[in-house]
């Protein structure tokens, strides 16, 4: 049982890709971000010390499968297909899809992107949403990128009219580079959530304990404080697994 193993070891080992601001990032070479602060609190509730590791996304899920670490504390969007393969915690953040444009780009609402070109990180849950949105809107071009950074760079270079991503990410981007980017309000599509994942076998009790900790952190207001700090606004998260 994973929970027992972790308690016995006194530590929980995790991996994430530390370039997904504001969730995971490096500040002066140190791991920082919403994700880290939240996980620190959860680990405290469990009574273990967290150990963080930076891995490229390509080796995170394989690493999880060969037990190189206990938990993926990267924000993973909850989708039905993924739930079949991995065990998710309760949501840790909103992941609804939104748009960002070049400053003064002329989009006033999401619908304005009809007939234009939008960039998105390939293979994300947000990409699926964007595709669905394109169909309802009656068509715009979607360009896939390996990482959001490249999509942002291409937006700045003028090859894209907008980049789609999760609302918290884009808000942070616009906050950090207000001279270049601005968000297009409001988010669109169905509500989606980020959560953490681990292996399915032997993780029930661990997931339960972490969910309890997450609820507690939300109830006593610590979560809202972190949300204010990193996203600029506080929003309530579901305290049960949302239906997908």
């Amino acid at each position, binding site marked *: 049982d994973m929970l027992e193993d972790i308690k016995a070891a006194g530590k929980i080992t995790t991996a994430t890709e*530390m*370039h997904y601001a504001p969730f995971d*990032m490096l*500040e002066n*070479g140190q791991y920082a971000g919403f994700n880290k602060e939240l996980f620190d609190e959860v680990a405290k509730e469990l009574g273990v010390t967290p150990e963080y590791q930076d891995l*490229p996304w*390509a080796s995170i899920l394989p690493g999880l499968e060969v037990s190189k670490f206990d938990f993926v504390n990267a924000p993973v969007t909850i989708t039905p297909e993924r739930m079949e393969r991995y065990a998710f915690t309760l949501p840790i953040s909103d992941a609804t899809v939104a748009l960002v444009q070049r400053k003064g780009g002329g989009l006033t609402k999401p619908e304005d992107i009809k007939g234009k070109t939008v960039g998105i990180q390939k293979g994300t849950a947000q990409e699926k949403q964007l595709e669905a949105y394109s169909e309802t809107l009656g068509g715009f071009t979607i360009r896939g990128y390996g990482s959001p*950074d490249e999509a*942002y760079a291409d937006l700045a270079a003028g090859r894209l009219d907008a980049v789609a991503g999760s609302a918290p990410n884009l808000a942070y981007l616009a906050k950090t580079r207000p001279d270049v980017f601005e968000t297009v309000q409001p988010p669109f599509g169905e509500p989606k959530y980020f959560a953490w994942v681990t292996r399915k076998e032997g993780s029930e009790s661990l997931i339960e304990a972490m969910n309890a900790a997450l609820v507690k952190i939300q109830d006593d207001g610590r979560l809202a404080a972190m949300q204010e700090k990193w996203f600029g606004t506080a929003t309530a998260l579901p305290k049960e697994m949302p239906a997908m």
Partner: protein
Amino acid sequence: MFSFQTIIDNLPVLAASARYTLLISGAGCFLGLIFGALICVAAVSRAPSARAFAGVYVSFFRGVPLLIQLLLAFYLLPLVGVNVPALAAAIFTVGLCAAAYISEILRGALNAIPRGQAEAAMAVGLAPRDIWTRILLPQALKISMPALVNELILLVKASSLVTVVGIVEITRMSQAIASATYRPLEIYLTAAFLYLAINLVIAALGRNLERRLAW
């Protein structure tokens, strides 16, 4: 638009991450040259088994991308009960991979050495080890120096792939900083200059050696 401040702010962290790049590529170069020479000797040996081994070695290490070799070393070896620390796995994989390329470069250079060179050494009675280290390899080294420097520089840059086993060297660090600051151009250029600095040193050493090997 272009922010020098970003560069100044992040340079110390980036430079600190360069120590992994230096360690892995330095040790990798060393291993690569030694193993490369050995594989080359095997490749031109008169023993069929040695030649076959060299053939398979080169075919594997050149054929499978380094990234996948690293993943194998990191994720597959544990499955068969060999658990190596990430850094050691990275250094060995990088070095063994470079050896495949280096052995081929040296083999080509050997083709350009007249047969009489080794014959004269054999006639004098030099042992195979001396024939290699005193007669053939020095000449092969001179002939192939520019190509070897190529390979070593590629190795420095290939060391960025070790991020897949969780080592944060220059490239990884710059990606992380880029996505935190949303200033990839500035950060990547800084990283490029760090690589350039390391590689200029290698190139200068190579040129120097090349001049000294002129005869």
